[in-house]
């Protein structure tokens, strides 16, 4: 038991395997931290759904380096994102922007939830509004008793 607990604790210590290589990292830990945050929300353009920090693809490495170059040159985070969007479009953003083309994406689920919730609420209210059933007549009670075999 104790061994299992220790093993589990060790497993918790494991860090995610980033593709960022030590040679790529910036010396300034604050800048490198910002680069990591940006890198995790930029989508690798050849691997469907990985961030550039997760991907070992050539292009992803180039993009990581470009992020660091821009940050070192004094760009803000927003400027770095703009730099990437200017080259690869909104596709590179793992969090898509809120605009006309993405309305369904952003609002679809909440609206569906709202519709479903109001439908459930309406049925519940309607059910409550119906009057309670009248009690059984003697005749019905006899029939019920014979049906149940008592």
């Amino acid at each position, binding site marked *: 038991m104790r061994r299992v607990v220790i093993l589990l604790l060790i497993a918790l210590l494991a860090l995610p395997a980033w593709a960022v290589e030590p040679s790529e990292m910036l010396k300034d830990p604050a800048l490198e931290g910002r680069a990591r945050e940006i890198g995790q929300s930029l989508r690798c*353009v*050849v691997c*469907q759904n990985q961030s550039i920090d997760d991907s070992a693809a*050539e*292009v992803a490495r*180039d*993009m990581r380096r*470009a992020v660091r170059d821009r940050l070192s040159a004094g760009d803000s985070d927003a400027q770095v994102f703009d730099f990437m*969007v*200017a*080259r*690869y*479009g909104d*596709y590179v953003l793992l969090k898509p922007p809120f605009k006309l083309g993405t309305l369904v994406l952003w609002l679809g689920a909440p609206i569906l939830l709202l519709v479903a919730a109001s439908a459930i609420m309406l049925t519940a209210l309607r059910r409550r509004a119906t009057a309670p059933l009248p009690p059984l007549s003697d005749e019905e009670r006899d029939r019920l008793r014979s049906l149940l075999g008592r």
Partner: protein
Amino acid sequence: MSRRVLFLLPLATLALMAGFFAWSLMAGRDPASIGSVMVGRPAPRLDLRALRNGDKPLSDALLRTGKPTIVNFFASWCTPCLAEHPLFMRLAQREGAVIVGIAWKNKPEDALGWLAKLGDPFLYAGLDFDGKTGLDWGLSGVPETYLIDGNGIVRFHFRGPITERDVTGVILPFLKGGKP
């Protein structure tokens, strides 16, 4: 709404989904396609050392000559590049197309050896060893091909190798008309 109609709701949902899936399959929709934001914009910066010794470096001026120009990123290690290479040879020899070749992440001697063996369709050839120019062009890998009109505006961006159909359907009309 009557209750009966409500029972049809799951069926309607299924029909809607089936319709979407059928459309996805039939309409040739490619979910892996990342599109290109370059089309319709002025061509990105071009400032590269020449691949061939003795050539002049490549600059933006090459893309604003008034003549439609093809820009092709390739590498000697790239198999699909091998597949599309004969098409570029034909475009250069038969159509006299202006083709700018850019060796991407390729050692110059490897790229030159590859061209020496297969033929060199490029009027101008540049070297993008570190991939920085590729990034400026929104490149996702090799091969990729851009059609630039005489005013330096990107009109087409092919990701992946060009095919016979691209040549007859898009590239040849583009070269003749200057516009798609």
